[in-house]
């Protein structure tokens, strides 16, 4: 959700609402935190149910989001715009993959106990 709001804030900002910039920065921070949490969860998935792809896709997204953060920070818009679109596509794809192929029961049970 935070990821999808980022272009909205950017649009608000570029339309001339200065506060949009602060929202865009807050959104970027939020996306970073969520990314770290997701990466942690993906590590747990890898360890507990031996499924590696959530980790690698999450890692790719976190690295992409970090690059995106710095590209925005230094004003490298040639990188910021296409990378932003790619990240949104990536988030959507991972979301769809997790939705279509939920993690096996065993993990859910483990997680419920833990």
């Amino acid at each position, binding site marked *: 959700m935070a990821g999808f709001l980022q272009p909205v804030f950017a649009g608000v*900002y*570029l*339309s*001339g*609402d*200065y506060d949009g*910039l*602060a929202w865009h*920065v807050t959104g970027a921070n939020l996306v970073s935190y969520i990314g770290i949490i997701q990466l942690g969860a993906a590590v747990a998935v890898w360890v507990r149910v031996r499924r590696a*792809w959530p980790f690698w*896709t999450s890692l*790719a997204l976190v690295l992409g989001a970090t690059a995106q953060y710095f590209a925005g920070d230094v*004003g*490298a*818009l*040639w*990188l*910021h*715009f*296409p*990378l932003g*679109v*790619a990240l949104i*596509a*990536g988030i959507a*794809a991972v979301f769809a*993959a997790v939705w279509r*192929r939920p993690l096996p029961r065993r993990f859910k049970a483990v997680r419920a106990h833990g």
Partner: protein
Amino acid sequence: MGELRTSRRRLLGIGAGLGAVAAGGLALSAAWARRPAVTGEELRSEAELPQAFSLPLPIPPVLAPVESGAGGDRYEMVQREVEAEILPGYATRLWTYEGSFPGPTIEARRGRPVTVLHRNELTVPTVVHLHGGRTPAASDGYPTDLVLPQGWTGHHAHSMPDDRAVVTDVQREYGFPLDQRAAMLWYHDHRMDFTGPAIWRGLAGLHFVRDEVEDALDLPRSDRELPLMIADRAFDAEGQLAYPSLDPTLTGEHGVEEPFLAGVMGDVVLVNGAPWPIHEVDTGLYRLRILNASNARHYELEAVAEDGRTVPLVQIGSDQGLLAAPVRHERLPLAPAERYDVLIDFAGLPVGSTVRLANRLGSGGTAEVMAFRIAREGASAPIPETLADDLPEWDRSEAAVVRDLAFRAGRMEDGRHGWVVDGLPFDPARTDVTARFGEVEVWRLIADVHHPVHLHLVGFRVLSRGGRTPLPHDAGLKDTVSLRPGEAVEIITRFDGYRGRFLFHCHNAEHEDMGMMANLEIV
């Protein structure tokens, strides 16, 4: 198990595909996009260009007053077309103030009024604006306050009606009280819709204001103080100035050909009207008064010695005069209409060597600006540690109003591509911002591409850039601030001096001509 493997393979395939598309997009962007970003398009010269650093640096003549009295100094200037040799072997037609490009320099003292009678002997209407001047509205060179040439029959002087315009025939007297800090100002044409081509043809000159604060510092003066008006131009095969006007007579449709809508840049860098000049100096301290008089080109200046070492540019002043303390730059960014007052120390450099003033944003010919040849030993002088103590300080908490203003691409009144302020193209009949006399305001300016934003009448301080502390070169009192793509800048100022109708606009001259200007009414 087999099913799982298939779906995993498919998942991997989708992931790899997505990754490939994303990587392809980024590679395309990296290859196609301009890095660093550039707003504008470069015209290519067809004339034969001289070798860089082969011509001497001209210094614009200082204009003598026709009358001097207790009440100030009075000058007269004629705007006329002349032919001048800018490129060796070519006679280039120019529009000039008093026959010279840059126009003659006016030297003034703080608080001592200057009047200038301008006579228009060109073929089009003109109007003079003193950029950075604290000038009453009647003499501020409002874009519709035109001076018409003799026998002018053009019924449409510009694209929109304006009831408040004060139009005169052939000549007009401008009065400048100059109750302001010592600074290097510049005067140039400001005719509505046609400012870009008029400046390009040569209508620009320097105007110094001096005061006691500056005198007390004992900075390098006379031939150790060099005005440097940097402007890019392009020349056609006959050596005439090339400019992509839709109507080259500058009497009908305004604007430029489509590829140049974002700004017109030339491939020849002129300093005081000479292409890539060279100037002899000694090993002492010099004061450079730099103006970027280009229509659209930004520069990033770096002084480089023959051994590759960077010679620091020590900034002591900004658009509106001296800083509180010097700021040392390896590279100095320079947006259109900005001025920088810098000291450069040639001490320790070998006699006979040269120091190039390079442009790190340029390529090919535009990567060079000019050079200094170290001709002899000179006496060294210290760089003062503190400078001016008369800079206005305004605090956010004093602000009566905070405004957001967006500078971006849009449409002009006639539907053509243009540039707009808060969604609207310039209309002399519409008041965009009403400020109360004496009040402090914070303006938050937001840009889509590069927009050097200029306010008439007042100097301002830069409060923040991109939500952070300003950059080192944002120091001091400014009248033009360079917004980079996607960037926002907060500025603070007090609207005092004079009431009336003033302007704020983008100083990319092509943007300005295509709508990016707005009215500031001080009441």
